[in-house]
């Protein structure tokens, strides 16, 4: 037991105030480090900051791009929160996203003439189901054979890459391209955008819908059972909360979120299926959830910040002439500072024996 610090503030109060202070400290430290780094390679730090800001929020369009980047991160992260709180590490979002995107693509290409009002939801449902199924298997393996979900979900990612590669260089390959990519999707499968002049699509609203749901679930019977399940499976069994079933459902839920994100990626942005559909997003989403301290609002902020960093970082190449490697360093430094300073209180909750990801143990 943690004998070193036994203060009994509720984790919530402890994390909120301290989290904020830590965040600000982290920002200050990182700003200093990055400025020094940039000055070292002969780039004007102030100009870079300016370019970063205008790159991510400067214009309506760039804000829109930031939101676009944030959307799949947010959706997947929110769907992962319940399983992370229960201590399940579903790192299979890339594979689930890929299969979700695949299903959506197949549906859209098979039924290109359906009216938009039918085709769009059909693609969404298909993507969601495919993602859920992809995660269901690791869940099942975990529930029946205690197969470590980190490995099985990672395995599914590689399998997804192989399957997509096979289909996209075979039956699904577009006739016009010498690339592993599908035909382009019919226009009526496209997700509507909701901020004119940007590519920001209604997927963002879908993702945001999950916030109140999570918030409510926390206060519900379901949330309670998840807490018990995450804390002590033996106890859960005594309360007729079947750990196996919950494992499967939690994994499947994460997969459903990722599948939806895959659908959004093809239906709203790429309008084609590529092998690398989930490349930067899939893994990052898990960390967005952790950065957000497994709290729905925290996750919204984390996703937004991450989206801004990703998009703003890309635009630095043009805006400030900063090389992409430096952008990567910058992102890494920010994450590092945040991870060191802020997670102690936010993600670890009561220090010591609590599992680090089950911080949101509200009573």
């Amino acid at each position, binding site marked *: 037991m943690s004998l070193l610090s036994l203060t009994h503030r509720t984790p919530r109060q402890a994390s909120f105030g301290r989290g904020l202070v830590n965040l600000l400290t982290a920002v200050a430290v990182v700003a200093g480090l990055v400025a020094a780094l940039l000055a070292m390679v002969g780039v004007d730090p102030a100009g870079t900051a300016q370019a970063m800001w205008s790159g991510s929020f400067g214009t309506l369009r760039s804000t829109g791009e930031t939101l676009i980047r944030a959307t799949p991160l947010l959706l997947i992260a929110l769907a992962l929160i319940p399983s992370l709180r229960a201590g399940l590490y579903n790192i299979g979002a890339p594979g689930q996203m890929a299969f979700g995107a695949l299903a959506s693509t197949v549906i859209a290409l098979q039924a290109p003439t359906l009216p938009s009002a039918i085709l769009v939801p059909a693609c969404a449902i298909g993507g969601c189901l495919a993602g859920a199924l992809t995660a269901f298997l690791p869940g099942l393996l975990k529930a029946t054979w205690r197969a470590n979900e980190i490995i099985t979900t990672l395995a599914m990612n590689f399998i997804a890459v192989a399957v997509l590669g096979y289909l996209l260089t075979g039956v699904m390959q577009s006739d016009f391209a*010498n690339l592993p990519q599908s035909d382009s999707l019919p226009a009526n499968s496209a997700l509507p955008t909701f901020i004119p002049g940007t590519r920001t699509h209604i997927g963002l609203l879908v993702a945001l819908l999950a916030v109140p749901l999570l918030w409510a679930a926390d206060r519900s019977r379901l949330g309670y059972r998840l807490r018990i399940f995450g804390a002590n499976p033996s106890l859960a069994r005594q309360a007729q909360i079947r750990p196996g079933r919950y494992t499967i459902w939690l994994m499947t839920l994460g997969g459903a979120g990722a599948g939806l994100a895959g659908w959004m990626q093809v239906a709203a942005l790429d309008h084609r299926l590529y092998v690398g559909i989930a490349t930067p997003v899939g893994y990052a989403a898990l960390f967005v959830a952790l950065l957000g301290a497994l709290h729905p609002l925290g996750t919204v902020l984390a996703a937004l910040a991450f989206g801004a960093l990703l998009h703003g970082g890309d*635009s630095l190449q*043009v805006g400030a002439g900063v090389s992409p490697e430096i952008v990567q360093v910058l992102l890494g430094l920010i994450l590092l500072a945040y991870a060191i300073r802020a997670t102690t209180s936010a993600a670890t909750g009561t220090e010591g024996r609590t599992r680090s990801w089950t911080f949101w143990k509200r009573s």
Partner: protein
Amino acid sequence: TPGPAAGNGDGDAVHVGLIQEARPDVEPWSLSWHDSIESLKAKNPGMKVTETFDAYDATRAEPVIRQLLDSGASVMVLSTFVLTDVAKTLAPEYPKVPMVLTSFGTMQQPNLSSATASYLEIGYSSCWLLAKLAKDGQVGVVGAQEAPFEVESEEGCRLGAEAAHPGAKVTVVNSNSFTDAQANREQVQNLLDRGIDNIFLVSGTEDTVGGFRLCETAKAHCVTWGGDGRKWAPKAAVLTVELDWSSLLADLTEQARTGKLEAKSWNLTYGNKGLKATGIDEAADVSPELRTEFTTMLAGLADESISLPASKVHPGLR
């Protein structure tokens, strides 16, 4: 709304935006674009170039390209065919900016040109030399995947090797990745283990670095295409079929300057000096006689007296 007054700003100040799939330090393909634009810049000191290296998938590239266009880029060079969809979206939105995409196909927009190279000629000349260098006519080809350009290069390779050496045998292996240098090296090693030490590195992408290295230490011969392979294998790279994009780039900057846009379809061949044989003159293992013979062969390719089958990748072009 169309982009701001790009290209017809203050006279000569042409601003070229170049979207690369990787750093020129790591792969021959990007190096060829980089070198071409540098040589053009040397001739036009006022020219401004913005090169980006890390925005090569469609979703990420679009906003970056827009940002470039909005900040006044007057020529847009999309050096990877992954950006086809993006190009098709952006070209009508910025009708005054001449753009080029490495792709093949009919371009509907007056400001969107396409550019490619004759992979048959690349493969033919590469393997011709390798087959000559190999006493037994054994040539190895290390590719990444059976991408159409690789398949076509390999076909050219077979023709070239057979032309050079009656009993030539071409062995193709793939590393299955455009980025995995370790896998590429393994495949070269496999060829070396089979006694094949004249190798055509056909992928032209990041993975080739592994192959170059092994060729260099194993004193094998390797040939590649794109940018000068001696950057990675000073001795072993006996030949690079260099792609010279500078006349294309010059044409585009000219279009931007004059405002007279015309979509063209570029195909780099020996005939139009888009392909250049680099490195062979300095290669120690190539005898003067062989060098002469090679020059003759290139002339044959250039004047099309060496006939090649119809290209499958870009029908109608060589």
